[in-house]
């Protein structure tokens, strides 16, 4: 291929602009949707990851297993075997070297009322360690302090969703009181929003001192979970093992299979979600690839029509000495130009579409270089793949037949 072949192809393609445009449009839509949908998948995967990481990084969660009574396995987390002493041991034991912080927690649900509003929400009894591990930030007031834990203070910190449920959106409830299970608590702070919906909603929570939750609100001695922050992401596995062995010893269990607690790793959750969103992205890209295929067939269709229309021209070129390869190249160059231009415009459309999606949904704007390179390669490949058959057909025309063709 030389410059003249390229110039010829461009001038031929500009003769019938509408047809060229429509053939290209198929590729534009195909490539554009592949890029936009891959970006969408990656953006939502990043959004989910950053949300999970905002719940605390390097986090292990110890929960009691469901209690086994007479061979019947209860619900996970339902046991009462985790105690404050376990949490203290994890924090202070000399066997444990990889743990930075420990947050004992008691979690329950309760009806919460104010003068004229009420809601049913999650109550978590915590120590100040909770705020450090989960990186809780305050919009108003302060988080629970150690003094309040020690003094079994009747204070509460509210999530933004609870505030709007009880006091109306944007209200400042600090200093007001709420009633939970017959106890009156004073609001001392409001957290900033962390997002999340439904059962995962990190904003629909009321935090109270751990001792208040256990003694005043729910009448319990045990913990529902212990959050453990590993010293670094590299020692997550060590921390998990050390905490596991310590608790086995403390609970006097010899066979790890009989353990009465489980330890969840934030990284496991992250990996599972990455796999899920990866599958989702592949699925979306697959759907978009079908439209790319249809676009490619459109190119083949147009090229076949072109070959038929230009039968006489092909005959003449062969009579003047064009070899088969020359004719093949001529038509392939045309179809590659169609798909290449379509690909370039498609990349622009795809990037623009992902940008608009990111604006409207608030998800991050991600366009990977890989998906653009892939789109380039695929669009040129489609030109060769779907241009090949029409080009061969042109090249195999017999010059006499072609010259006679009306």
């Amino acid at each position, binding site marked *: 291929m030389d410059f*003249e072949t390229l110039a010829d192809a461009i*001038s031929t393609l500009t*003769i019938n602009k509408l047809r060229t445009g429509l053939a290209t449009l198929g590729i534009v839509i195909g490539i554009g949707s592949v890029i936009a949908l891959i970006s969408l998948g990656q953006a939502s995967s990043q959004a989910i990851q950053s949300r999970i990481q905002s719940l605390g990084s390097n986090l292990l969660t110890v929960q009691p297993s469901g209690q086994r009574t007479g061979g019947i396995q209860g619900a996970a987390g339902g046991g009462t075997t985790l105690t404050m002493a376990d949490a203290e041991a994890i924090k202070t034991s000399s066997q444990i070297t990889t743990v930075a912080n420990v947050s004992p927690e008691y979690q329950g649900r309760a009806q919460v009322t104010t003068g004229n509003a009420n809601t049913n929400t999650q109550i978590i009894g915590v120590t100040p360690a909770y705020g450090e591990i989960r990186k809780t930030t305050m919009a108003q007031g302060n988080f629970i302090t150690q003094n309040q834990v020690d003094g079994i203070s009747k204070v509460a910190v509210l999530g933004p969703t609870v505030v709007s449920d009880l006091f109306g959106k944007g209200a400042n409830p600090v200093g007001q009181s709420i009633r939970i299970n017959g106890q009156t608590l004073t609001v001392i702070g409001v957290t900033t929003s962390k997002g999340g919906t439904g059962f995962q909603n990190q904003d629909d929570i009321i935090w109270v001192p751990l001792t208040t939750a256990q003694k005043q609100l729910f009448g319990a001695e045990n913990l529902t979970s212990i959050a453990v922050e590993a010293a670094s992401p590299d020692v997550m596995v060590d921390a998990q093992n050390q905490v596991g062995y310590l608790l086995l010893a403390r609970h006097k269990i010899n066979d790890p299979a009989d353990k009465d607690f489980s330890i969840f790793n934030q990284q496991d959750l992250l990996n599972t979600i990455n796999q899920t969103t990866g599958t989702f992205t592949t699925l979306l890209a697959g759907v978009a690839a079908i439209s790319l295929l249809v676009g490619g067939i459109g190119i083949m269709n147009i090229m076949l029509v072109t070959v038929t229309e230009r039968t*006489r*021209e092909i005959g*003449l*070129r*062969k*009579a*003047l*000495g*064009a*070899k*088969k*390869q*020359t004719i093949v190249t001529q038509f392939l160059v045309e179809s590659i130009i169609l798909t290449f231009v379509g690909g370039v415009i498609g990349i622009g459309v795809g990037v623009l579409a992902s940008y608009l999606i990111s604006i409207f949904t608030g998800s991050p704007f991600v366009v990977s270089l890989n998906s653009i390179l892939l789109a380039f390669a695929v669009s040129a490949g489609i030109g060769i793949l779907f241009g090949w058959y029409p080009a061969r057909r042109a090249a195999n025309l*017999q*010059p*006499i037949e072609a*010259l006679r063709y009306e």
Partner: protein
Amino acid sequence: MDNASFEIKKGEFVAIMGPSGSGKSTLMHILGALDSPTSGQYFLDGEDVSKLKDDELAVVRNKKIGFIFQSFNLLPRTSALKNVILPMRYAGIPTEERQKRAEKYLKMVGLGERMNHGSNQLSGGQQQRVAIARGLAMNPAILLADEPTGNIATAQAEEIMQIFQKLNDEGHTIVMITHETDIAEHAKRVIHIRDGRIVGDSSKHRQRKAKMSS
């Protein structure tokens, strides 16, 4: 075609005549290396081209034969110059050389002023002259003209014949297929064919000299 054998020497100007269906077209396709004979041989410029493959025939057509068709067969929307350059592109001749030769032959056929006109901006006679320039571009062994005046007005046909005679005087070998006697008489030798056989081959007629157009 059946059992037709003849020889055309270098520098001849031959007309092949016959009614439609006489086998003229088949003969023209074989002479033009557009088709191979089912049996028999065709030597062109000392080379047996009857058994060549498609791409080898393409090279023969490119280098040895200058085609002039009844319906001109110029590339549409393409300048006269580019049309003449086309066979030289297939031969891989360098760009400057192509340009020089194309200009030279277009001037020779009297189109020096219209080299950049598109083929659709030219009259039938002018288009046929572009085709002649294109046929000459590769300096072929023969110029093969298939009913060269079939689609153009008589006055312009006369101009074409004049160019042919001039080229023949300069030593070009021309084979012209026609069914018009007065056109055929411009050639030095006339071969008559009928039902695929040669029924006459003579140079006895008085060669008609093309009149200068006004």
